């Protein structure tokens, strides 16, 4: 692997994770209610446990959030 | 609650476990047996795995106290210090005493971390200097890790007794088998500082300027070191990097630089065994 490819991979990954971490915080405090009402009164620790997963799987959650938001 | 009378077979059925209910007695007894057995197996595997590690070889990193060395600085192919053999040699353990009749000792000079070389070295080439740092040593071969301070390597104003300059003696073309390692880790910075798991680290070290060394074995299985340089006498070509840490066979021009075995090597003359 050349240096430039390695740099590109690492930059992309860093951008993806950075976007994911930002999304994750928004998701566990807002979006989560849209896709799963059972999370309404969940404690902070529960939200913290979701952040790593949400930071990585954010495209899946974002899609679900958007789709759920469109429903009447 | 049940309309059916309990059948005798129901009494002998296996205990049913539900995580949020109390554990049935027979099951608890089973777990009190199974868990300690599992823990003992863990301990046995840990001991067996730890015992299966190989001896990394005798090498010392004297990183507790820095010492000063006076000598002649040599800039090429790698930063080195030529020192009279008696110079500050009292700390040397007997087991590492060099079996050499050479009248001077050559130390490779490296920096902290995986680096070697600093600013202004070429101006010092061939001049008396004082170097302060920590020694690493293995098989009688020593290296100095310079202190991070800029004054750790400085020109010496007062005159010193100049050690005899090593003579380059060409010894012809040779084919050798061994492993290319970075001299710093191998001489004691990391133990073990060789092999597959250390391959990436050795590559990073050599990339950072740490002198590469070919470690071979003689007929008595004793380790023999060859400092690797490119055919023009400069630092080893980066084309050799992919072979670092692998078992290799190399062909190059062998020279003696004082007590140092130097091998002039082109990347195309390296092959994996």
């Amino acid at each position, binding site marked *: *692997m050349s*240096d430039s490819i*390695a740099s590109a991979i690492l930059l992309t990954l860093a951008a993806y994770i950075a976007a994911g971490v930002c999304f994750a915080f928004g998701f566990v405090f807002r979006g989560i209610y849209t896709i*799963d009402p*059972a*999370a309404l*009164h*969940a404690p902070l620790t*529960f939200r*913290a446990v979701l952040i*790593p*997963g949400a930071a*990585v*799987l954010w495209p899946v959650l974002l899609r*679900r959030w958007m789709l759920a938001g469109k429903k009447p | *609650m*049940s*309309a*059916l009378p309990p*059948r005798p077979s*129901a009494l002998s*059925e*296996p*205990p*049913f*476990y*539900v*995580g*949020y*209910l109390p*554990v049935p007695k027979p*099951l608890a007894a089973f777990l009190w047996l199974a868990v300690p057995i*599992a823990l003992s197996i*863990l*301990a046995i*595997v*840990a*001991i*067996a*795995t*730890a*015992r*299966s*590690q190989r001896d*990394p070889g*005798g*090498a010392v990193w004297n990183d507790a106290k820095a010492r000063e060395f006076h000598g002649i600085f040599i800039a090429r192919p790698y930063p080195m210090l030529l020192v009279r053999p008696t110079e500050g040699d009292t700390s040397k353990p007997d087991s590492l005493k060099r079996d050499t009749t050479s009248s001077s000792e050559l130390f490779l000079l490296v920096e*902290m971390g*995986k680096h070697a070389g600093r600013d202004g070295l070429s101006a010092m080439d061939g001049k008396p200097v004082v170097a302060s740092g920590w020694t690493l040593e293995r098989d009688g071969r020593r290296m100095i890790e310079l202190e991070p301070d800029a004054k750790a390597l400085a020109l010496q104003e007062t005159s010193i007794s100049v050690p005899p300059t090593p003579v380059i003696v060409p010894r012809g073309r040779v084919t050798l088998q061994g492993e290319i390692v970075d001299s710093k880790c191998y001489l004691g910075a*990391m*133990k*073990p500082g060789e092999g*597959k798991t*250390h*391959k*990436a*680290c050795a590559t*990073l070290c050599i990339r950072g300027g740490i002198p590469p060394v070919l470690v071979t074995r003689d007929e008595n299985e004793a380790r023999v070191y060859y400092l690797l340089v490119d055919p023009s006498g400069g630092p080893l070509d980066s084309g050799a990097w*992919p072979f670092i840490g692998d078992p290799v066979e190399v062909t190059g021009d062998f020279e003696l630089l004082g007590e140092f075995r130097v091998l002039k090597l082109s990347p195309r003359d390296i092959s*994996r065994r």
Partner: protein
Amino acid sequence: MSTGYVAVQWSRHKRLYDASVAIGIAIYLGAFVGVSKAFWAGEHGISDEVILIRALGSCAIVLLHIILCIGPLARLDPRFIPILYNRRHLGVITFLVALAHATVAVGYYHGFGVLNPFRSLLTSNTNFSSLRAFPFEILGLLALLIMFLMAATSHDFWLKNLSASTWKRLHMLVYFAYGLLIGHVALGALQADRGSIGPALMFSGLCIVSGLHIAAGLKEYRKDRGAGTLVVDAGEWVDVGAPDEIPTDRARTVCAPKGERIAVFRSAGSISAVTNICAHQGGPIGEGKVIDGCITCPWHGWQYRPQDGCSPPPFKEKIATYQVRIVGGRVQVNARPLPPGTPTTPALASGGLS
């Protein structure tokens, strides 16, 4: 079962479980470091960081073997089910141990240099075409990513919101991660070590894991073949046996012609049938028991009412139900599943008792 979420539904059992795992890891790391320090001292000492890397890495591999053995062990002997119950915690802890191994290894071998450690990790070795020189680090990194995904999605929230089948598929990647780790160890530590104990341990681990899986698979296969699949009425109804052949508050599992398993329970004098697959993690409901009038899954204790496959309020889970009838003193179940949560009329078992 999900009503309101919490981070961890702690119970005494889970605390004991996690404490045992912590003790196990402490014993492993302590023994490894102690032996390494005792046998290789002074000039021949192994670097502390290397000892730590090896201790953490081998500990994670051993824990992964345990994780992989728990499933088949629980199928072979239900007494292992309590160890299965909290397997997720073991998985998360294993990931953390592996992460510690990776952190120390990347910092030590790829740090302190002229390159960013992650760039060094990707560029220091690119001999992908040579087995002898293969960059084994990449295999470990991929396995670590899989273990991260599994650990990060281990909460029931993900099980529900990624859908059970996606979640299950994601977590089946553990076998892929295991394969990657065998490569990581074989092309890394074992290649560098050239000893015989390491390969022997690794090979025995592989044999134990695959042996247990094969044994558990064979047991299930035999059970399916043994389960009455006598089909009557144009393939619609499957014979289960006489009512009293089903133990009280337990089930008999039969195989429908298409292969799906149906759990037929007898409790409180009536017989009803539900799918054998729990809505939670696909646990074998047919190996469960009726407790307080509810079918209880043996894996994590999720409950469903026999008559309609619904979890008792406030829970909302549903599983598929099946119609049952008694013809000529034999219980028969309709092979066609009803939508999850469909109420059925239980057959009265008393007619079959004499």
